[in-house]
């Protein structure tokens, strides 16, 4: 089995996300050991790996939620360490577990997000109506307190909130957890469309099928570094083999 590991060159005009020699440890446990990765603008990028391998830690370093020990992370032209506030204006983030303010109503929450990102009244109304209709989140639902929402509804609200201000990069960490089949299908379409509009989508998922079907490129991470990077558009046969490649990288029998 051929697994290709690449170390792309840095070109600020071409890439939306640049991760260079990223190191992160929790005490003695080294999770990231020099991860290097570039994600192109307008790309739908899949970031996969087995449990506890450092996918969420990588995302936490990307979004500025955790500090890293060594390396450099760039989001568009912003260095996450040197200009964290600038970097945070570039992305919308969806966590695997919904993280919205449960004492608020759905509408209040979206209003809060819109205010934080200075969304104009016109954009707010247009965006939230469009996104809610895509994800089947009704106006009545938005008037209700989030604490009364089901897990799936909370996740849908987080998805709407993450796109409300039309970010250049959409980062999703296991976004399909708790969503029904229709919502997962809609989300797949939305990710694809977002990338088609020139925006960048960075998604982690345990669902290999989802990643192999929609992503332009996929990275498999192992032992804190990139173990495999595949361009699924150039090598379409990889889409069908992704599950086998994944197993092979982790030394499992296929």
């Amino acid at each position, binding site marked *: 089995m051929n697994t290709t590991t690449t170390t792309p060159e840095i070109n600020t005009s071409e890439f939306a996300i640049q991760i260079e020699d990223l190191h992160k440890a929790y005490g003695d446990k080294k999770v990231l050991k020099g991860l290097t990765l570039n994600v192109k603008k307008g790309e739908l990028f899949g970031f996969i790996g087995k449990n506890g391998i450092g996918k969420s830690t990588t995302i*936490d370093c990307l*979004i*500025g*939620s*955790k*500090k890293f020990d060594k390396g450099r992370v760039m989001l568009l032209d912003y260095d996450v360490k040197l200009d964290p*506030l*600038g970097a*945070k*204006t570039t*992305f919308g*983030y969806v*966590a695997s*577990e*919904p*993280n*919205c*303010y449960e*004492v*608020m109503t759905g*509408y*209040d929450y979206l*209003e*809060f997000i*819109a*205010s*934080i*990102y*200075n*969304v*104009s*009244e016109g954009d*707010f*109304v247009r965006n939230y109506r469009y996104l809610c209709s895509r994800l089947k989140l009704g*106006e*009545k*639902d938005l*008037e*209700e307190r989030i604490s*009364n929402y*089901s897990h799936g509804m909370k996740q849908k609200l987080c998805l709407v909130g993450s796109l409300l201000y039309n970010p250049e990069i959409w980062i999703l960490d296991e976004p399909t957890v708790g969503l029904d089949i229709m919502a997962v299908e809609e989300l797949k379409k939305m990710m694809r469309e977002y990338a088609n509009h020139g925006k960048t989508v960075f998604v982690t998922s345990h669902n290999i099928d989802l990643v192999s079907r929609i992503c332009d490129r996929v990275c498999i991470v192992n032992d804190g570094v990139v173990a495999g990077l595949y361009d699924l558009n150039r090598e379409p046969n990889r889409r069908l083999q992704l599950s086998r490649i994944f197993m092979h990288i982790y030394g499992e029998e296929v």
Partner: protein
Amino acid sequence: MLNLIIKDFKTMLGSKQNLYQRVATAIFTLVFFCAFIIVELFLFRTILKQIGNINGAKESFLTVFLFVTTIILTISGLFNAKRLFFDNKDIEQLSYRPVSNTQIIVSKLAYLFFIHCLASLIFEYPLLVAYGQLANRAPIFFFKCIFYPVATFFFQMGIGLMLVYPVWLLIKFLKKHFLIELGFSLVIIFGLALCYSYVLDVFIKLVSKNGLVLLFSEEAIAKVISFRRFAVPVNFLLDIFVNNSKLSFLPFFAVSLGIFGMGLSVAIYAYNYVRNISLTPAKTHKKRAYKPVSVKKALIKKELALITKNSNYIFSFTGLLIVQPLLLTFVIRSMNASLTAGTLQYFTALIPGLTSYVDLLFIMLFTVIINQGANNYITMEKRTIKQMKTMPVKFSTQLFIKVSIPFIMSMISLLVSVIALMASKTVPFTTGLFGFIISACLLFIFDVVSLWEELSIRHLRARSTTFSSLISYLLPFVFAVSAIILSYLKVPNVLTILGGLLMIVLVGIAPVIVIFKNSGKLFLDLEAIN
């Protein structure tokens, strides 16, 4: 079945704390219980010694005391039952497990029985023992009274179980209507404050010798004796336990079982009903218009929502803030009365500033302890801490707003309290003014230290409150004791207070500098609840 009971114990007692915190909690709980029992026994024994010669008075006062504890234990049992029977997560977890409804209900009743007996032994048995000692009862009486908690369980828990479903419905209703909930909470807190001030007043009168005669006039004692026949079920129980009346036993037992049966039927019906309904309330639809606000305003709105729209904070913070002026006036008035009358008069004459310093101590304690109800700045965010970390707003701005909201609310309440104290002439102008200044400084330092503790939470552990507790409890006491000593040494009051203020500022300056320098780093290192 045993596993279910253990699960209920773990759920109710909470198992997230580490060993150090569990030991600390256990010590605090023990100290609290000991203090409560000492005060309770002091009051009871003092009264019984005073009215011991009057026929039937001892038994009547025992009835009154046990009647009060019965009400408290019934309410406590009711809320324990509510938490046990209507915990959404518990209902969800048990709904698909291979356990029958009977097993679930019996395990919950076993838990309630154990807790009731324990509470009754802690709060009621000492009263019976004290009565037995003063009334020279035979040793068999003390042994027999060990079964008093068992005898009270069926009646009290029966009442509790009967009310558990209506109370659950009421709370559910209140949670949906914020203003009604706030009003309801205020009425309850106001009622509790009045009860507290009344008990404190009685206590103060007991401490001062002249007050005792006033409190226990013949007329008052006659009223207590006549009250006995209305104190159901304690009067029946005391007939059985104190007067050895066998005639009362069977009717009481039958009535208790009947009430328990009715309560149990209500609880089982409600439990089955709640298990099978959607806990999501009906939806309401209102048209809204988007009002874009500035980032700072949005953050302030969010913080206000976190504090005022969470029912947990209504009882522990917002409600208490509203009644703080009233509560403080009651307490300080009672304290001043005790210091200017009876045996304590001697000390007041010896130490000129004693009353002022005790007043200052209470103003400080009330301010910080009430503020403690809302200074879990990071913990209250739970998962949304990630929102804080990813939004393009400076950490320092977010933290500043986070601390400012409860601080400003506490400051407003403190100001109103001090004005109320001065207007009602409970404290002189200088005490009120210095009380405000010192409490404001203490509150500021307390909030900064609490923020530092919150930001130091690591690896999903609970927050360590050692430093904030030292600030909130120890510092006011150190100030008061030092001031009293200085006053005894005839140091002018103004100098003493300024010295105390300086001490508070000096103690608090280090954490303030640390927090202002390292807030960003501490915030990023924070890995709690992520």
